[in-house]
């Protein structure tokens, strides 16, 4: 078998730069639009927020919680809405693209742990996706310190005053999760930052080790590298089971610090996982269309298509499990999460679009066998899912940060394009560094004869 290498051509680079440049232009336009859109006087704006949210809340208790929230923020230095919007989007894209990167590694480790043979010919693509991990980690750490005051309400020191002086007893009860062993309310939430650094450090270490064995296998052959990669994968999966859940609480759930959901770890994981699978599908199909990956045929596409189809439904299952219990129990401190998203006019359409893009369309379009075996259908559904789960993250983050001021405009689209260009560039840059097909993979032969 001849060695196949991806060539990162000048044409492809140019396209990515255009994507990024258009993204920057749209972003700047979006910022100016958001600025001129100004809500006028800041104090009136804060009052407005309280009124709106009180109207939204389904019970009186709820209104109290919410207006306390708004009160707490009004007491602080208020950031301009357009800047908040930038921060909010910065965080959405950080979390989302971190997900795409770590799912690259997760996909590989799952294949090793289950001794899957079918995917042997396309493992280099998720490996290249995971190359974004170190950049994701640095970006996220830096952005956290930039956005913390606006995105993470719990970082405000005044919340940790005694309750009589305006402190928040609910948030105080959770504070050790962020601040330990530092003093609660101090400027550095040590436990929180340490978790972020440790998770990224561990993920990156496993990525480097597994990658080392995968590439060494090309030269040495034999079974040893496969076996070592498999042991590493099994350990990684255990660590990822915990770290993905905890990072979901840290990075997304703590944006709404009063609220909690026991489904949330799974919810974020399923959203990452299905968007990562859809992204892998897009890259595989695009490479095939350019004449690469000859050994990937419609049987392999069928398998990855089943993954995308199945985990779209899995995401919906998790989404609904979270929604139904909260809806049915109707406990004010829980239901406020959905009240904010379903009853606010600027999020309600996003809320239903989320279900349409991530469940209804993939479910109906990918249902038949033929659909999963055709590149054209996969190329229709996978981008829908990738965009759809960005929308999902938008819906998790924005209402908590912006309250009722959020919108989807050029700013959001522009920043998504910038991140997408960065992610694709790093992925393709790393894809070109190693052979596209692992020629000594012990299961390559099995993959060649894969037939379903």
């Amino acid at each position, binding site marked *: 078998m001849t060695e196949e290498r991806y060539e990162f051509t000048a044409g492809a680079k140019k396209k990515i730069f255009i994507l990024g440049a258009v993204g920057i232009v749209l972003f700047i336009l979006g910022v100016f639009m958001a600025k001129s859109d100004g809500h006028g006087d800041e104090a009136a704006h804060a009052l407005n927020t309280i009124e709106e949210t009180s109207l939204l809340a389904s019970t009186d208790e709820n209104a109290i919680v919410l207006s306390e929230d708004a009160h707490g923020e009004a007491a602080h230095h208020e950031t301009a809405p357009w800047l908040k919007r930038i921060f909010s989007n910065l965080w959405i894209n950080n979390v989302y693209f971190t997900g795409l990167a770590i799912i690259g590694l997760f996909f590989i480790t799952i294949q090793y742990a289950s001794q899957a043979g079918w995917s042997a010919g396309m493992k280099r693509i998720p490996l290249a996706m995971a190359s974004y991990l170190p950049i994701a980690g640095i970006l996220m750490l830096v952005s956290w310190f930039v956005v913390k005051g606006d995105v993470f309400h719990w970082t405000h020191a005044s919340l940790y005053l005694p309750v009589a002086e305006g402190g928040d007893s609910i948030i105080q009860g959770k504070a050790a999760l962020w601040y330990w062993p530092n003093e609660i309310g101090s400027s550095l939430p040590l436990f929180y930052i340490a978790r972020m650094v440790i998770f990224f450090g561990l993920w990156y270490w496993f990525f480097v080790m597994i990658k080392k064995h995968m590439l060494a296998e090309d030269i040495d052959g034999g079974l040893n590298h496969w076996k070592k990669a498999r042991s590493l994968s099994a350990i990684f999966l255990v660590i990822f089971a915990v770290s993905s859940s905890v990072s979901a609480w840290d990075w997304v759930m703590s944006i709404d610090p009063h609220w909690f959901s026991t489904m949330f770890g799974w919810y974020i994981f399923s959203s990452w996982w299905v968007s990562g699978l859809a992204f892998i599908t897009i890259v595989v199909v695009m490479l095939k269309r350019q004449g690469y990956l000859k050994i990937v045929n419609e049987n392999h596409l069928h398998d990855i298509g089943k993954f995308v189809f199945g985990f779209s439904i899995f995401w919906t299952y998790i989404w609904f499990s979270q929604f*139904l219990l909260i809806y049915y129990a109707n406990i004010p401190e829980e239901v406020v999460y959905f009240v904010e998203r379903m009853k606010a006019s600027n999020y309600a359409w996003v809320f239903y679009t989320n279900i349409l893009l991530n469940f209804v369309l993939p479910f109906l379009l990918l249902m038949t066998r033929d659909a999963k075996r055709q590149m054209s259908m996969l190329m229709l559904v996978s981008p829908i899912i990738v965009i759809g789960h960005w929308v999902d993250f938008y819906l998790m983050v924005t209402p908590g940060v912006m309250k009722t001021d959020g919108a989807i405009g050029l700013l959001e689209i522009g920043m998504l394009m910038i991140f997408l260009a960065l992610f694709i560039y790093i992925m393709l840059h790393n894809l070109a560094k190693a052979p596209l097909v692992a020629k000594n993979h012990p299961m390559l032969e099995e993959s060649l004869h894969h037939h379903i």
Partner: protein
Amino acid sequence: MESGKNFVLGIYDDEDVLLEAVTKVRDSGVKIHEVYSPFPVHGLEHALGYKRTRLPIAAFMFGLLGFTLAVTMQTWMLGVDWPMIIGGKNFISLPPFVPVSFELTVLISALGMVGTFMIISDLKPYKKPRMFDVRSTDDKHVMAVDLGTNNLSKDEIGKVLNESGASEVNDKNFD
């Protein structure tokens, strides 16, 4: 000659020989009634030129039926026949309907698929199966050619089967 009565059987020892034989026999213009094997032979359905089953379409239809049934049933029960206040929700509120609708969709779809499969495969209780050669349940592959649907004579078919690698060629007649 009447179809479904008189057969010529080719007995094969090896599944690789069988696979090639199926292609050879079909190429020489003989229509194969059915091939019986003690285990699933990979690629046999392609060699025999079988079309893919349309069972998934039936599954989808039954699923749709189950979904409609579930939604109608719950709407009628909780909205019309016996409205009850549960947790302050509307009488007809869709989220709590989802689990029941899902389960009935799956149930009707599965039962409908089993029923459809049994009908199209002509499986029913107390049906006595037609056994061409009892060794097809042990170690031989049996290719049955219906004389009624072929224009060739019995000898000509026997010759084709022999040339394709059959270890023996037998007659089988059902009354």
